């Protein structure tokens, strides 16, 4: 196997950073929701890469060869949980975006600022 160092962690962090970028510099509410989703995806990817063990196989015993190391199961379980949570929060965020659009008639985040000062 090619030696890739800590590249998977770095790529996952890059996704987090990309999402943060979208949240900071994009003005459309839907794009900001996408930014939140990107951060979420980055974190999920980061979690799941934590479990990899060199030369390991999936932690399933059905037809598994003996004397081969298996990757860690916990990060996969955490990622499953976190993906579903992400889905739920994204759904609620998008429905609030719909509500905001109904009231304000715009999705421009710089125009949705009745609550200020």
């Amino acid at each position, binding site marked *: 196997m090619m030696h890739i160092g800590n590249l998977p962690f770095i790529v996952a962090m890059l996704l*987090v950073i990309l999402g943060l970028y979208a949240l900071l510099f994009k003005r459309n509410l839907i794009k900001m929701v996408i930014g939140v989703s990107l*951060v979420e995806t980055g*974190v999920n990817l980061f979690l799941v890469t*934590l479990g990899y063990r060199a030369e390991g196989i999936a932690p399933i015993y059905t037809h598994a060869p003996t004397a081969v190391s298996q990757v860690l199961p916990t990060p996969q379980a955490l990622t499953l949980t976190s993906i579903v*949570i992400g889905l739920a*929060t994204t759904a609620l965020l998008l429905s609030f975006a719909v509500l*905001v659009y109904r009231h304000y008639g715009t999705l421009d985040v710089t125009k949705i600022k009745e*609550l200020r000062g």
Partner: protein
Amino acid sequence: MNALTTHAPILIIATPLLGAFAAPLIGKLGWTVRTAFAGAIAALTGCFAGLLAATLYTGGGAPIVYVLGGRLPLPSGLAAPIRIMLEVDGLSAFMALITALVAVVAVLYSVSYWKERSGGALYDSLLFLLIAGVFGLVLTGDMFNFFVFLEITSVAACGLIGFRTWRKRSSEAAFKVMALYTLSGLFVLLAVGLLYGQYGGLNIAYLATNLGGTMVDRVALALLIAGLAMKAGAVPMHMWAPEAYGEAPAPVSMVLVANSQASLYALFRVLFTLYGQSLSAAAVGWILIVLALLTIFVGVTMALVQKDLKRLIAFGAVSQIGYMLLAVGVGFAVLATRPDFGLTAITGGIFHMINDVACIGLLFLAAGAAIRASGSRDLHSMGGLAHSLKGTTVLFAVGAFALAGVPPFNGFASKLLIYESTFQLSPVLAVIAVLASIVLLAVFVRAFQAVFLGPRLIARPEPVPWPMVASMVVLAAVVIGFGLFPGFFIDKIVTPAANALWSGQGDYIRAVMGG
């Protein structure tokens, strides 16, 4: 009875969860059944919280560990816990008591507050989810589980903030708060991932035995501090708080304050129990102190110029978070070096939590009654409500004086501890804290004058139903009781909580890891 005591930690979370899941079904049976069910669930939760606290205090304050799906914290022969566990020490029990108080009062208030509205069953469901989430936050002993409960509170809280969908501003607040809550939750999860990657565990006690001061640990700590401080509403990350508290229905605003305090609890837990001595306590303590001073100052000065009654109280609530941060930050900065005032500071900060939730809750509920009666929340158009809402007027005054730290109410007792101990570290801190309290009194004098005094501006305000008055009276009783007998309550419930932070790290770890 013994089984109840053993399983009290999980029952506290399970009971409101049952209420949340069943509420949409029970709601079909009509208002009376729904209300009775909600009241029963809230009362039962309160009983379990009291039982848990009593068990802990009579047991000498040793942490109670409840392993989900197992009997022992550690399976035989392994030096790492494998199952999720709830761990209750003095501080957790104290926070559970606060949450129970808030839960009972909020449900009682909602009975008539929400009677004439649509979606009452959904409201009950979300309220119980929020309560269950806050209980989970303060009881869990597992970092990932903590994140899950953080998300439960986020989703339920934002559902409630945006519940009055016909209000333009509610939808705006709900979207913004949801985005920020999710972001803070994700950064907490990122920190949990970093710690899991380094140490292969998720249990707080297990991580605490392994943590060092490496770069990765520091980045994880920074993510946790920033994420949790944002959810607690520390300036300059507080802007969501006035929107959330201001736009949520009155009882929910109070529960949201308890939710913020649960985040604050988590921040303290991370600093004292998870990291403890493995980092430079003085530097981190001063980060908290600076955040706290900003929070106190900006909170009160912004409250002074608000025109919306709920938003004014919300800024007051933000400033009070600063007092707790200040006291515990001072305590952390001098951790284990200056026991002469460090423990006093932490005691003051912890005691201020329950005082704050009682006073702010009372103010939010009284404001909710006033807004409901007059149909307006603009300070300019309200006035003269004292002529018709006499009880609410008195209760609002009690809450306002207590929050501003006027003796003999409870706010003064905890603020005195904070002033006197922070003065030992630097007189400037105490001076700012005292000045901010004075400005806060001015803020609430203004709100009181504008809403309740003056000639009758509203011809026939709606009367306040008795459940709303009763819930406010409960909070006022807490305010006055804690104010008149501070020594008793500090001795019974606050000291175990303060000790859990000050010197409880070893006990917390030993309860899980043995040895």
